[in-house]
């Protein structure tokens, strides 16, 4: 316990990074996932094809591979740079990897949400003269999102835990910090582990409860 109290500011800082990594990746994945879902239901074969290949590739690649590619492939070899500071640069690269990966799952969740919207809804919108994009934006997607709030919550929980993979390219989020604390306090590794596990629980449990509540509240009554 002593180690946890002593290192509390360090742990807090690490989890603050985990939270920022999660929120930034979640926002980017939601936007990219929505665009991909729109492409997958669009009337244009090329767009559907591109989105399908993207989703199948990213969904079936281990996240560690994606993150390592972003860090070493994009960062070191291709020299993609967002910042002078090396640690900020790797933070951005890991956000790219996490959101590119999560977007594939978001896309599939949205697509299953679109399938819950009765076809008559889109037909009525077309009959009013709404264009394909307006139809998605005002009629289909709002109803699709309300149907998949709970699954999106599960994706957010998975993403929160997946941010630990960013440790592979040296981002000092929770798991990498835990590793360095293990080295410094070898007599209390069990306490440190349970401390970190508990902190993740504090992040993810309320997320699940909140999304469950939101999903019931926003449910579309038919």
């Amino acid at each position, binding site marked *: 316990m002593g180690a946890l109290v002593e290192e509390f500011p360090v742990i807090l800082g690490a989890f603050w990074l985990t939270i920022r990594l999660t929120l930034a990746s979640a926002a980017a994945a939601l936007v990219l996932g929505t665009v991909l879902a729109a492409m997958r239901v669009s*009337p244009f074969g090329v767009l559907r094809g591109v989105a399908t290949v993207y989703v199948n590739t990213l969904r079936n690649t281990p996240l560690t591979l994606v993150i390592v590619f972003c860090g070493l492939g994009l960062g070191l070899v291709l020299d993609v740079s967002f910042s002078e500071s090396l640690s900020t640069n790797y933070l951005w690269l890991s956000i790219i990897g996490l959101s590119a990966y999560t977007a594939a799952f978001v896309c599939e969740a949205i697509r299953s949400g679109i399938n819950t919207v*009765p076809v*008559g*809804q889109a*037909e*009525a*919108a*077309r*009959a*009013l*003269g*709404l*264009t394909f994009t*307006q139809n998605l934006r*005002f*009629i289909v997607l*709002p*109803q699709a999102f*309300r149907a998949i709030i709970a699954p999106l919550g599960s994706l957010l929980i998975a993403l929160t835990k997946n941010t630990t993979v960013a440790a592979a390219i040296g981002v000092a989020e929770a798991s990498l910090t835990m590793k360095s604390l293990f080295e410094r306090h070898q007599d209390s590794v069990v306490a440190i582990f349970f401390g970190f596990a508990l902190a993740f629980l504090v992040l993810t449990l309320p997320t699940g409860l909140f999304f469950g509540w939101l999903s019931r509240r926003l449910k*579309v*009554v*038919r």
Partner: protein
Amino acid sequence: MTEAVGSTSLVRLENVNKHFGTLHVLKDIDLDIARGEVVVAIGPSGAGKSTLCRVINRLETIDSGTITFDGKSLAVEGRALAQLRSEVGMVFQSFNLFAHKTILENVTLGPIRVRKIARDQAEKRGMELLERVGIASQAEKYPAQLSGGQQQRVAIARALAMDPKMILFDEPTSALDPEMVQEVLDVMISLARDGMTMLVVTHEMGFARRAANRVVFMADGAVVEQNTPDEFFTNPGTDRARDFLSKILTH
């Protein structure tokens, strides 16, 4: 109700054919609907009446033939098609009100998003239309909170909000409980009286008699005969129509 019908045609179908797989659902359909005319399509189920309704605003595509609306050939896709659809109202059997929008939002969505009318103006007009169909007091509710008859009247108001040149009714009372049919038919009859051009697919023979200028009888994808309601119901010209009428009018 045969008087006061304009002579210029608003919709013209020429030689229209449509298949669903191997099923030939529309066979060489030729049909003219004049401005202000109320045409009722009747016939046994599977005759192609609903498909006829749906090809006019291209919710179904056709395989061959031409459809002209207001002098212009029907656009195939894109903005021109959306433009056409905004001029043709449609009322569905299952109402299809937007489930996540209030009654008023259902009626104002088209005017605001398609016609680009200012929200307050669209809401003022929306309330007038809801008043007209007798639902104004429910404006803030959601579709699922209304009865079927009320929902269908909202759907009619939603179509009217676009100031359409014509309204298509695809079996508007078939999904309703019997006691709610009349309230919807009353709204439709008042529209017909006001000179709205209408194509109505229905099994309500009373409506056909009271409001239609013309009855089109369809069977097996073809128009078998068409006539004024009086003439059609009292003196059908084909065996197919006689047979159909004897089955529905005996009880």
